[in-house]
């Protein structure tokens, strides 16, 4: 800043601006009740715990007078409305439609008849954990969601049976009515509401078997399309509450930098400006309108300190990682990799930091008032936001009310509460509701990235060309260790989320200690390949950069390394890359299934490719599902062009096959963006990318043709939103090796290809 040499505390102008934050106890700590619903005590919840009767609640759409509410999720009204409180985030993945299909199926109502809404966060709805991530929603909801609906159906049938004096078995439900075929009579659900309330809640509701499904398993239309094509759908950024102000956040220009001095006198004179507030995450410029805050923000003169990482840069980090020899932790150790001899192949692979960059920039509305903090924000974990806000305000979690509208994309980013907490701080400071909207630059520089990594991989081929040993070593930054972002948001993994993680992801790590963090090696362990000797290890490193889940998480890094290296091994063994994999997957039928499917779809080895086009293949297991891609690509005057992608996914069972296909298509394009261009770099502690001109996204004319085949194996249901991301980068890198002869071991591929071509031009290798 210009003339900001004086101590801010001694400047009357500036001191006025510095509002003391983190005044613990601003929200009075007490048990409070807001429209406590009569008769909700002891509502049965399937797949989780019973709700406590004195949970604080605000009215929710399910609270209809005189309605039948057999459990927290489902309500039937006397006038035949059927409501469903969808307890997850809808961020594009289609879970809202999937869950609604499960409810409609078991409750015997039309999908269009169901009124689906987003409930506020509460322990009751949380029973089926509201956190959305890890491709787990349908996996964990497939039975309990149907049980909740089946319970309602059974109680309505029991009510009708009682009324007519017949056995419940002689009745059935159809299209929102209970039918007595033998006596040619029927009653609508609404007519049965009063009697249904008197029925016993079944402990173990009878759900349909798959062969009886009429709706589930069909390519039904999304229930959220109509509001999304008319502009009606409300995202977090669209929330307006009475007396609301809007804020621009000026984040530190360098990681960890804090305000040394600030002159907001000019900004405060600008139209509409309400306040300028220093927070632990930068300076908030609060105005009546966002455009007013946008204009005032550049007028705030700020001097920042150097921060925790003034000399930090990703190039330094690359060099540091390449030199490191830390052995780390062993995640998998089978056979004896050291006892094998043969042809040894070794390589080093690198992946960069990546931003999630959802189309809706991070935003939140918070209203801190009296004994309540009310928050509206698109998020993947309302309970984590409740915990974080309560922690900041020094109140109980139940005093934090979280509303979750539609999410304009997330990809892991909306698991973190920064924008919501900024809004809480600002609302507390100005005493009015505040909406924080990050600029695109804020969002790109938001410091929640997929970790940068450095991987060493080594394979030994025996005399017959078979892969006898594989060693994999990852150097990556632990996401778990990074979650509390410098201690701002402890406890960041609330006990309930921890419990959920333990229940759903116990395969991956010990959620009690969080010590055995296997995310840095996922995609390298539990391979389907018959490799007798394997060793997978991981060394953590720490940086000032805060890292995050990024769609497909560790798989997005490690599947690239493993599957690109498999290609190297196949070539070293002088074998076809498909046949090389196929031979090692004979005892892994579901791996083999997707691999053979993409080979068949692409007519692998049977069709001559156009001149200059290369073809690559990759396969993986991730999030309970199996996925393979074949990618055809060529290079046109130095620019990589992706021509065609063939994809096969085996997720066991598809609740809505067309939405599963759309997730594969979307995953491919999301992953191609990252594989081709995605790279967040830092220099002197500052992120170099900002808007979409410097952090490039795939566009329509660059998107390849994508052909998707779903394999139904009647096995356990697997995840859908993420698995297809993982094998994209290696399949493309392998295609480019065939097309150009350059082995690309560092993401993103376009600049790596540029460097490889430049080296080749200079006569290097």
């Amino acid at each position, binding site marked *: 800043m210009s003339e900001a040499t004086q101590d801010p505390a001694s400047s009357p102008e500036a001191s006025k601006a510095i509002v003391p934050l983190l005044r613990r106890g601003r929200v009075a700590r007490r048990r409070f009740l807001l429209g406590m619903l009569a008769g909700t005590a002891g509502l049965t919840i399937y797949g989780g715990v019973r709700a406590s009767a004195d949970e604080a609640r605000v009215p929710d759409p399910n609270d209809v007078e005189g309605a039948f509410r057999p459990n927290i999720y489902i309500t039937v009204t006397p006038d035949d409305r059927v409501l469903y409180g969808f307890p997850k985030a809808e*961020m*594009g*993945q*289609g879970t809202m439609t999937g869950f609604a299909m499960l409810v409609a199926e078991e409750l015997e109502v039309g999908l269009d008849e169901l009124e689906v809404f987003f409930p506020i966060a509460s322990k009751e709805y949380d029973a089926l954990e509201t956190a959305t991530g890890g491709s787990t929603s349908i996996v964990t909801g497939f039975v309990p969601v149907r049980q909740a609906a089946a319970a309602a159906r059974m109680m309505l049938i029991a009510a009708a049976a009682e009324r007519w004096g017949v056995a419940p078995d002689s009745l059935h439900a159809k299209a929102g009515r209970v039918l007595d075929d033998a006596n040619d009579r029927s009653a609508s659900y609404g007519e049965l509401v009063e009697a249904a309330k008197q029925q016993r809640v079944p402990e173990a509701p009878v759900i349909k078997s798959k062969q009886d499904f009429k709706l589930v398993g069909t*390519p039904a*239309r*999304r229930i*959220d*399309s*109509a*509001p*999304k*094509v*008319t*502009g009606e*759908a*409300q*995202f977090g*950024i*669209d929330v*307006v509450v009475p007396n609301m102000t809007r804020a621009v956040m000026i984040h530190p220009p360098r990681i960890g930098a804090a305000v040394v001095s600030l002159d907001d006198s000019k900004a405060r004179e600008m139209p509409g400006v309400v306040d300028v507030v220093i927070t632990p995450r930068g300076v908030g410029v609060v105005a009546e*309108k*966002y*455009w007013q805050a*946008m204009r005032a923000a550049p007028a705030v003169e700020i001097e920042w300190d150097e921060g925790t990482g003034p000399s930090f840069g990703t190039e330094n980090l690359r060099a540091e990682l390449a030199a490191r020899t830390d052995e780390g932790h062993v995640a998998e150790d089978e056979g004896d990799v050291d006892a094998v001899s043969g042809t040894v192949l070794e390589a080093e692979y690198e992946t960069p930091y990546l931003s999630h*960059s*959802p*189309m*809706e*920039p991070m935003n939140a509305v918070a209203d801190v008032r009296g004994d309540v903090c009310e928050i509206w924000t698109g998020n993947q974990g309302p309970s984590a936001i409740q915990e974080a806000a309560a922690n900041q305000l020094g109140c109980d979690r139940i005093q934090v009310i979280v509303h979750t509208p*539609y*999410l*304009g*994309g*997330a*990809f892991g980013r909306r698991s973190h509460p920064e924008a919501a907490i900024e809004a809480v701080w600002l609302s507390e400071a100005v005493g009015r509701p505040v909406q924080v*909207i990050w*600029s*695109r630059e804020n969002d790109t520089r938001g410091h929640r990235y997929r970790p940068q990594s450095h991987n060493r991989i080594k394979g030994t081929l025996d005399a017959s060309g078979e892969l006898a040993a594989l060693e994999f070593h990852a150097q990556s930054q632990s996401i778990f260790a990074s979650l509390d972002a410098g201690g701002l948001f402890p406890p960041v993994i609330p006990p309930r989320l921890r419990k959920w993680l333990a229940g759903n992801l116990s395969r991956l790590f010990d959620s009690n200690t969080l010590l055995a963090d296997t995310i840095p090696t996922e995609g390298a362990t539990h391979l389907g390949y018959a490799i007798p000797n394997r060793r997978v290890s991981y060394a953590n490193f720490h940086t000032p950069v805060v890292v995050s889940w990024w769609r497909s998480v560790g798989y997005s890094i490690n599947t690239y390394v493993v599957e690109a290296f498999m290609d190297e091994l196949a070539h070293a063994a002088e074998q076809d890359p498909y046949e090389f994999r196929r031979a090692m997957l004979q005892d892994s039928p579901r791996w083999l299934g997707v691999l053979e499917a993409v080979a068949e779809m692409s007519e692998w080895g049977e069709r001559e490719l156009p001149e200059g086009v290369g073809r690559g293949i990759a396969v993986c297991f991730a999030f309970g599902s199996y996925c393979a891609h074949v990618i055809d690509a060529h290079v046109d005057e130095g620019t990589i062009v992706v021509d065609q992608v063939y994809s096969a996914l085996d997720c066991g069972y598809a609740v809505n096959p*067309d*939405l599963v296909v*759309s997730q594969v*298509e*979307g*995953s*491919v*394009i*999301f992953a191609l963006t990252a594989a081709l261009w995605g790279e967040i770099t830092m220099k002197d502690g500052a992120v170099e990318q900002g*808007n*979409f*001109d410097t952090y490039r*996204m*795939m*566009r*329509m*004319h*660059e*998107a390849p*043709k*994508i052909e998707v085949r779903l394999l139904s194996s009647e096995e356990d249901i697997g995840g859908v939103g993420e698995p297809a991301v993982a094998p994209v980068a290696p399949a493309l890198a392998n295609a480019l090796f065939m097309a150009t002869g350059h082995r690309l071991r560092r993401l993103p591929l376009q600049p790596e290809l540029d460097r490889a071509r430049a080296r080749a031009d200079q006569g290097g290798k």
Partner: protein
Amino acid sequence: MLEVKLKVNGEERSVDVPEDVPLLWVLREELELTGTKFGCGQALCGACTVHVDGKARRSCVTAVGDVAGKAITTIEGLTQGEADGKLTVLQQAWVEGNVPQCGYCQPGQLMMAAALIRRCPKPTDAQIDATMSGSICRCGTYPRIRSAIHAATGQSEDGGAK
């Protein structure tokens, strides 16, 4: 401040804002038409696309004073001219093709597509690319957007007439 007179979705509106305020924020905050989205603020992503006198414009870089008196159509006004509660053929194709995922960019995509088919009733893939490449979709709905445009214009996938 000057009063700026606007014609939005067929209605006369007036707002008290400086003439250089971006149309996007006037629509969203002054007129509470939140279907038009903020994505980048620099005309890089297309989420804020509206029609001005029938042509697609990026509202995030359009000064409200520049469009005073002109006919502005937002996503909320796209169905004007349809029977009550009915979607346009384009919106219907979006619904039938399960196009939207998160949906945030879709108002902008639809406004681009609507402007395209107005001046080019049966666009080829190349024409679709030329227009639609200005609009980013992070969920990767491009193949379905293409199919939906073809479906809405009565064409098969390769752009030929059905």
